[in-house]
């Protein structure tokens, strides 16, 4: 017994890596179909977009890069699906340098699915350096802040941008955020000043920081990580990476929980045994 406890206590962490690898891999090949419910913040995200009148213009700021792709790309795709289905006009911006190519891929994919036209139904304005300064500047003038789109076309020649001066001309803001600059800055610099509806999809790491904003109503909805993406996909009615990853997510969490449990058990039992030996 003591030998087993000592083995667990001194377990080479590479065994844990191996078990985590298996816990993630196996459900991808043999899906378990574990059911999950939709939480209030995710429902809020969906409902806020749903309430916007068809044909309205929405700003979607995709502030992430390929490093957060597994969590945030499914949200981006599902959000575009919901917005294109409602015939909303989507203006995309990025405050992270490596963001535009990622969003361009999602936009092209969804535009093909829904037969949407670039420049008429959506536009990718690309990246702009300046973080909060860009947000403040957009409050004064979006065309001056982003004079051209991602491909270099002047915004004055883009149909969807006609009549868009600042946030007052937009129905709401959808922010997909991986960190700084992201949701926190959108709340502080834009939502608080212009009182515009804002929803956020963020990485799981940053979600706990944003729940207070949801509680106060500064955020109308919140998607936290892949779990949030999966719940949102369920509402939108699509089967994306978020949903497909949920089994692997659940099994890997159980594995982590199991190792924390047996690690602590082994530690405390061994400590108690050593205490007895000393006495």
């Amino acid at each position: 017994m003591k030998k087993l406890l000592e083995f667990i206590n001194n377990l080479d962490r590479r065994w844990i890596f191996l078990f985590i690898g298996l816990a993630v891999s196996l459900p991808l090949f043999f899906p378990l179909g574990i059911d999950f419910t939709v939480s209030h913040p995710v429902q809020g995200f969906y409902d806020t977009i749903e309430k916007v009148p068809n044909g309205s213009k929405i700003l979607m700021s995709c502030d992430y890069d390929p490093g957060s792709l597994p969590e945030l790309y499914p949200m981006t795709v599902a959000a575009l699906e919901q917005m294109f289905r409602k015939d909303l006009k989507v203006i995309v911006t990025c405050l992270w340098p490596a963001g535009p190519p990622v969003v361009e891929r999602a936009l092209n994919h969804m535009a093909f699915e829904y037969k949407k036209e670039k420049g008429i139904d959506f536009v990718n304005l690309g990246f702009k350096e300046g973080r909060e300064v860009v947000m403040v500047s957009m409050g004064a003038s979006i065309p001056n802040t982003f004079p051209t789109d991602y491909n270099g076309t002047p915004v004055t020649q883009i149909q969807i941008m006609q009549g868009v001066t600042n946030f007052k001309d937009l129905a709401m803001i959808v922010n997909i955020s991986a960190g700084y600059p992201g949701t926190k800055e959108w709340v502080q610099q834009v939502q608080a000043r212009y009182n515009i509806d804002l929803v956020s999809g963020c990485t799981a790491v940053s979600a706990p920081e944003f729940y207070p904003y949801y509680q106060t109503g500064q955020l109308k909805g919140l998607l936290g990580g892949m779990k949030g993406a999966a719940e949102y996909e369920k509402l939108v009615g699509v089967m994306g990476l978020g949903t497909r990853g949920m089994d692997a997510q659940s099994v890997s969490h159980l594995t982590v929980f199991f190792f924390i449990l047996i690690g602590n058990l082994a530690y405390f039992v061994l400590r108690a045994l050593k205490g007895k030996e000393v006495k």
Partner: protein
Amino acid sequence: MTAEALGVWLGAGFTLCILSFLYKDNPFYKFAEHVFVGISAGYGVALQFHNVFLPNLWRPLIAGNLVMIVPLILGMFLFARFSARVSWLSRWSIGLLIGIYSGIAIIGFGSGDLVAQIHGNLLPLWGGDYLTSFNNWILCLGLIACLVYFFFSREHKGSFGFVARVGIYFLMISFGASFGYTVMSRMSLLIGRFYYLYGDWLHILPQ
């Protein structure tokens, strides 16, 4: 092999190089790490040059907008840090940057965080449904206990110490929740990579 397929193979190769670190440090991991750092730095410099320097400064300047000489000079002052004799010049540029960012951040924090969050915690403790009242009690008690814990002008003893201790429990629960979310986030990244390896690269995932 098409360019897209080559990209997938390269991506898979570098993913495996990085994952090999889980066994132990090795030259493949180091190679992938150095390539990543180099490409990121190069991409960043090129992007800043084309996205910031050219459209915001250079093009307006050569078009005759002479006001742009001011940011040009302030920008050049930043390079004065390389010489001890004239490094004091860089303080003007840094001072301007700090001033602008501080002003923006303070206004944003004041209206977006401080006022809104205090307002959000002025909650009714009685009335309404029981669950909402219970949640409001928990929130207010947790807030007060945590604030007491961070009040260091008085020794944490007696009833004051008890409340501070309750504050520690609230903080520990919030750290636990944050850690749980962090695990979820890291697992999501691993799932994304495995999807790439099994799906995009090996095509062995069931449809």
